[in-house]
């Protein structure tokens, strides 16, 4: 948008609400001939431009992945931990001391990835989100961060990022259910929502069905049946899936399929009967 005319149009459009902009486009559309309509339709179907990424000079997804890798390497090599590590009574925990700059950088990279998400670049988005979440895993390797809980230090809504990631997997992966389950196990403790996968796929019946099938298949393996113990993530997801979306007859069917090996389906069925 460099010409004076386009700058003028952009300046005017800034005063429009979202609904007014949609109405304007629809009015404009109805006055176009068929060829022009087809051209505009193609542009719309391509999705919005990844403006946040472009503004950072990351218009190409490959550049984004390179930047994520550079940040990861910098953190791993303690570029930000300048003064060693130790106990911080303010946090009641150990952490590295130094430059907090990695927080803004990660926030920016999540924002850039999300702009590619809105642009519908599903495969690139999955790679980028996974690479970003994997940075947090460096915390298991030592004090590479200046905060005890790096995920909590970000300003980014990590639950929203996880939902975006699962939507992208649902649209871009050849075996979305398996990939999503594996990914959910890796990212569940970042942010607050351990069940972001269920949130992300709740309106996609075909994905939800595939997910349920894959989770039931995983639940055919026997688990340690301690009611207060930790469930494997696949069992935990299946349990939450049934809590949210399934009724009594479904629970009865689930008991027949995996009740003996999992235990908890009987507990949940009986609780449902008691409600």
């Amino acid at each position, binding site marked *: 948008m460099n010409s004076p005319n386009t700058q003028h149009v952009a300046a005017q459009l800034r005063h429009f609400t979202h609904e007014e902009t949609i109405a304007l486009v629809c009015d404009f559309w109805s006055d176009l001939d068929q060829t022009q309509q087809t051209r505009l339709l193609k542009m719309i179907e391509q999705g919005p431009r990844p403006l946040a990424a472009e503004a950072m000079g990351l218009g190409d997804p490959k550049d984004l992945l390179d930047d994520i890798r550079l940040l990861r390497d910098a953190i791993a090599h303690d570029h930000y931990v300048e003064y060693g590590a130790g106990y911080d009574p303010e946090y009641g925990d150990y952490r590295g001391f130094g430059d907090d700059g990695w927080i803004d950088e990660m926030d920016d990279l999540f924002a850039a990835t999300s702009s590619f998400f809105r642009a519908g670049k599903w495969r690139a988005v999955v790679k980028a989100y996974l690479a970003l979440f994997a940075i947090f895993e460096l915390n298991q390797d030592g004090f590479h961060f200046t905060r005890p809980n790096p995920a909590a230090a970000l300003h980014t809504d990590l639950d929203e990022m996880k939902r975006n990631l699962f939507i992208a997997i649902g649209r871009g992966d050849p075996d979305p259910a398996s990939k999503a389950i594996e990914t959910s196990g890796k990212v569940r403790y970042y942010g607050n929502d351990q069940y972001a996968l269920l949130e992300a796929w709740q309106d996609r019946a075909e994905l939800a069905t595939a997910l349920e099938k894959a989770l039931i298949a995983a639940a055919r393996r026997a688990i340690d*049946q301690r*009611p207060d113990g930790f469930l494997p993530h696949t069992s935990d997801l299946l349990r939450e899936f049934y809590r949210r979306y399934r009724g009594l007859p479904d629970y009865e069917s689930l008991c027949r399929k995996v009740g*003996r090996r999992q*235990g*908890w389906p*009987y*507990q949940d069925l*009986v609780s449902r*009967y*008691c409600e």
Partner: protein
Amino acid sequence: MLTWTDDGLSKLPAKSGYRPMLVEAHGQALLRLKRPREAFEELRALFRNHMTPSVYLLLREAAQSIGRWEKLYPSLVMDMHEHVAMVDWEMGYLDEDVHAAELMGFAHLVESDWQKALEWALNAELPTGWHDANLLKVVATGLLRMGLASRGKGKTGKQPDEALTQALNNAPDIIRKYGDLLESAAHRSPARSLLNSAVKLYERMVEQEIGGRDRDHYARAGAHCRVIRAIRRWQGREAAFDRYYQGLLVTHSRRPALEDELRRAIEKSR
């Protein structure tokens, strides 16, 4: 439900931790189907190894409906007492051990036997369990709930103040879940005695927290003091609290951090 509990019990491994829950649900279903004798037998056997409030209350209901509660109650108390006595509290214990002790205090309260509950809480000398497991707190908040109900808003129109409401809202799980039963039991006991007993237990909790010798413990001691003051206000006995509070300050005059926390809790809040 009977079909499914039977199904689960026939299929789950012998060591499955979900079995007791299914036995309990089975007993509950029998009760609802007016088969209390069978429910009684199952729940009685379950309670020996699974001393939870929900099993206890179902068993109580089954026993009452077949006229066997008077005889059963002392033997259940004995079971719980034996369980607690068997634990070597210094060597190590489980949460369920503390919960068994709490249940015994709660059981006494439900039967309006508040003196025994008080005696048990003061003399059992159990350590504090994980989470909110704490015998003193169970009996203290149970007595508080009973005391307020015994002279409740129906009679006087009086509403608990913020400190009392908070104490009840933060009561241990067993009191929050089954407190209604205590309110029914409260009407057979004098409010004054119930609340005086609650104060005794809160005073014991203050002592315990002071023994913790750090700011966090002192702050909790202050919070308990606020509840004591609120109870005394409810009773119209504020002078009794003033004497207790001044006594605390004098006794612990060499602990400025404690004094600071107590003043923060009492004098900076009304």
